């Protein structure tokens, strides 16, 4: 692999990592903000619902409780288009979770917002669990509210951001790779020319036995060392000349007296 190609590849590799990680950060920030906004709206609905249940719970008779609660839940669902379904699933204190038929074993709090997120939510919905305090005649009890939130808006925006970032990152990488390749070729040019010239000078030296003249100003370290080498090439030409002479003398000797006579 040519040095300029290897160097531009290496630069591009680091560039790709930097672009990839930045894109990841950008996407992640956007994603978190979007999720937080949706969760905030859900929390407002849950608060509203809790207030409504508390307020109305005192006024309604036990027999009407279920119907009235369902009406309040339906109204809250209608108020917030993000919410697909609201279900009061369990009594927090007595843990009726298993009776409700829902598995909440994977519920965990991620430290963002008040609800706990059910990690086994399906692909189309987010499911959260909220603790709500409700009046039950004379005493207040804790209940778990299961909220199913639509992912449609969230997914559409996320996918759009992802696509945009993918396009932007690919474009930036392509431009970066091209520029690093062009840059490496350009920056390597003086060194390449220098090596080329040094190789030509050596070939000329071997062919003609003469050292080429050079402009002594503005030389690089590599050129300076080569000129130093050239100054010492007297030794090479001496060696070659002496060897040549000896070879000639040898040839003359091979021919013998008869040969010389002719």
């Amino acid at each position: 692999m040519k040095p300029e190609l290897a160097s531009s590849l290496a630069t591009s590799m680091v560039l790709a990592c930097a672009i990839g990680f930045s894109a990841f950060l950008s996407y992640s920030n956007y994603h978190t903000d979007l999720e937080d906004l949706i969760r905030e709206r859900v929390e407002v609905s849950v608060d509203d619902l809790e207030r409504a249940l508390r307020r109305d719970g005192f006024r309604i008779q036990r027999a009407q409780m279920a119907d009235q609660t369902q009406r309040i839940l339906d109204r809250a669902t209608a108020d917030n288009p993000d919410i697909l379904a609201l279900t009061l699933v369990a009594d927090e204190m007595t843990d009726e979770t298993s009776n409700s038929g829902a598995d909440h074993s994977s519920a965990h709090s991620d430290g963002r917002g008040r609800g706990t997120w059910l990690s086994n939510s399906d692909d189309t919905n987010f499911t959260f669990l909220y603790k709500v305090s409700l009046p039950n005649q004379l005493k207040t009890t804790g209940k778990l509210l299961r909220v199913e939130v639509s992912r449609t808006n969230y997914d559409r925006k996320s996918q759009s951001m992802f696509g945009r970032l993918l396009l932007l990152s690919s474009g930036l990488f392509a431009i970066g790779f091209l520029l690093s390749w062009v840059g490496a070729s350009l920056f390597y040019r003086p060194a390449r020319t220098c090596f080329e010239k040094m190789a030509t000078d050596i070939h000329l030296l071997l062919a003609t036995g003469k050292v080429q003249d050079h402009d002594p100003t503005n030389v690089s370290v590599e050129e300076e060392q080569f000129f130093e080498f050239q100054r010492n090439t007297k030794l090479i030409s001496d060696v070659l000349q002496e060897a040549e002479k000896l070879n000639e003398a040898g040839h003359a000797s091979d021919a013998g007296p008869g040969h010389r006579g002719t």
Partner: protein
Amino acid sequence: MKRKPKSLIQQFQFRLFVLGLLLICASVAAIAFDGVHQRDKLVFEADRNIEFIGKSLVRDIERALDYGIPITQLAGVNPFMEDALRSYPRIKYLSLLSSNGHRLFSTGPEPVGSEAFAQEAAYKHFRDVLPTDVEGQRVAVLPVLLGGETVAGGLLIGSGIGLRGSASAGSFLAFTTVLIISLFTLVEVLVLVVGTRLVNSVRTCQKMMGTISVGDFRQRLGPQPQSQMGEFVRALNAVVDRVNEHYKKMQIQVDLVKDGAGDEAQILRKRLGAHISQLLNRVHFAEAENSIMPRERALSDFRAPLFLFAFVEAMSAPIFPQFVITRSDPIVGIDVYLLIGLPVSLFFLCLFVATPVAAYLSNRVRQKPILLAGALGAAVGFIGVSFSDLYIDLLIWRCISAISYAFVITSFQSTIERMCSSDYWIKTLAFSLIVTVIGAGCGVVVGGMIAERLAYSDVFLVAAGVALIGGLTITLFMENLAPRSHPDVPVPGLWSRLRLLGNVRFLAAVAFGALPAKFVLSGVLLFIVPLFLSDLGVTPAVIGIIMVFYFAVVAAGTPLFHWLADKASLSMMAVFVGALVTCSGFLVLYQWHDVTAILIAICGLGVGHAMSVAPLLSLIPEVCEKEMETLGPSTVITTYRTLENMGGIAGPLAAAALVNHFGFPHAIAVMGLIVLGSALLLSFLFMVIGTSRSSDTTTLA
């Protein structure tokens, strides 16, 4: 005045680095800018939320109005609004307005200019008024209706600029971190690539020109790829070939005239003999085949893998104890902190066991297979850890990671030994390991960020990916360095190494110097700090940023303190003061138990290690003067570095026991006292018996 000549290769490297940096800066800035722009679009979503919250509050106010209470005489509005501010952190200001836009009740700091906005909204009967930015706050207004029709007033809501303000600050920090890490990585990668592809070739050519200049034509340069540099190498080889070719011809001529009879032949023989002997006095020709001149190498060529492996290994540091918690079920009779600390201890135990094996292999096998085995082993280990569900699986995979890490570190150590003179390599080793610290520093930040945004287990998957990239870098760019010694040359065995333990000074340096350093590194930095910070509610990304202070201080402080200690010949003093600084930093936690105190303790630990680790390593040749001659410096230093891992084994276990009894802050303080006590003992011992055997002789004399 003559200008100093510049190296074309260095210019090329520098310019490419600047270009790379500009490209990275521009790309990261473009992505960051686009991210901010996209998030700005979320302001419409945020406006929806303000409206949503506002509607919820307005409904309650309207309910009160429906009971017939005039809006000016509503009671308990302020507590109601204060409660709303507490419930919705986005909302910063609430004001209930009369129908003509005058403020009746309000909570929170009033945005400057909101009054004019309220008046304008009142003019429009609070209907269809779009939210707007007023002096750093987003303000919106909603009508409060009486009986669902008549406008009785309005509710003005001022929300913080949280979505753009604080988030932008966080993003700025994150993107700046990406830039800094990219800078370090670019330096290492370019040093590796330009070094192996150009600098070393140029140096070899320069060496070749030097040998030709003094009349040595016995060596040729190795094969080079088709490039201008390759052309130059071939030209130099042509010079050598031509000269040697003539010499061979000369030899043939000599053979021809050797048997010639007669006076002429005798004269020619004499002439030839005189010429050749004169020539051979000045010039060395290749007798048969030319040998290949070995390629020049630089230590910096071997740094990149070390950087990458330190990077991947440190990625999990900010979250590892927390990750272990998720994988360990409580076992009756075993303390939970012990369960968390055990994998960290096991990591150092594996380093302790694998280092001698790796050292043995480094002397027998070429470097590339060892590094590749390290890269693959690390990747497999990380993938295993990521997918492990059981505690025992986690332990096994972690062992594989540790063994791989031992292979890489030892291989690098062996490379330094091969490339440096024996009296210089220990100092080189101490300084070269700074690259490990820089790599680890970059790793903890990236690991923390990934853990915060994805999941703990994903950090290990990314680490595996980076380890594989490291393997690819090794395959593509690194030279396959030959093993150090011939297989027939004996390498000191275990018993020879154990002889070192007979040296009291060596034993003291290990037990009271090196061991405590690793003890606090593993016990405090890798075990207590992540747990303590997490307990204080600090996020993984911030834990990574806090931990990076240790690495930054060590990387910056080690050369400085080592130079100072070396200049003043105060290595032992540096070790003691280092321990004192570490202990002082830790004792801060005895009084204060917050994030700032932890940061001070971490910086103290960094300064302490920067002051003591390298000077103590430099003391070893003096401490083991005799063993350095008999066993060799490599054996002594490898044994020293192997034994110091015992501190790493004990650290997390001791920390677990201390945390269980005293809690996080006091456990750190106690560990600081242990370090100070050890340093005091070491100083006292070296004061009494001296740092070298020659001091014994002086005392006896």
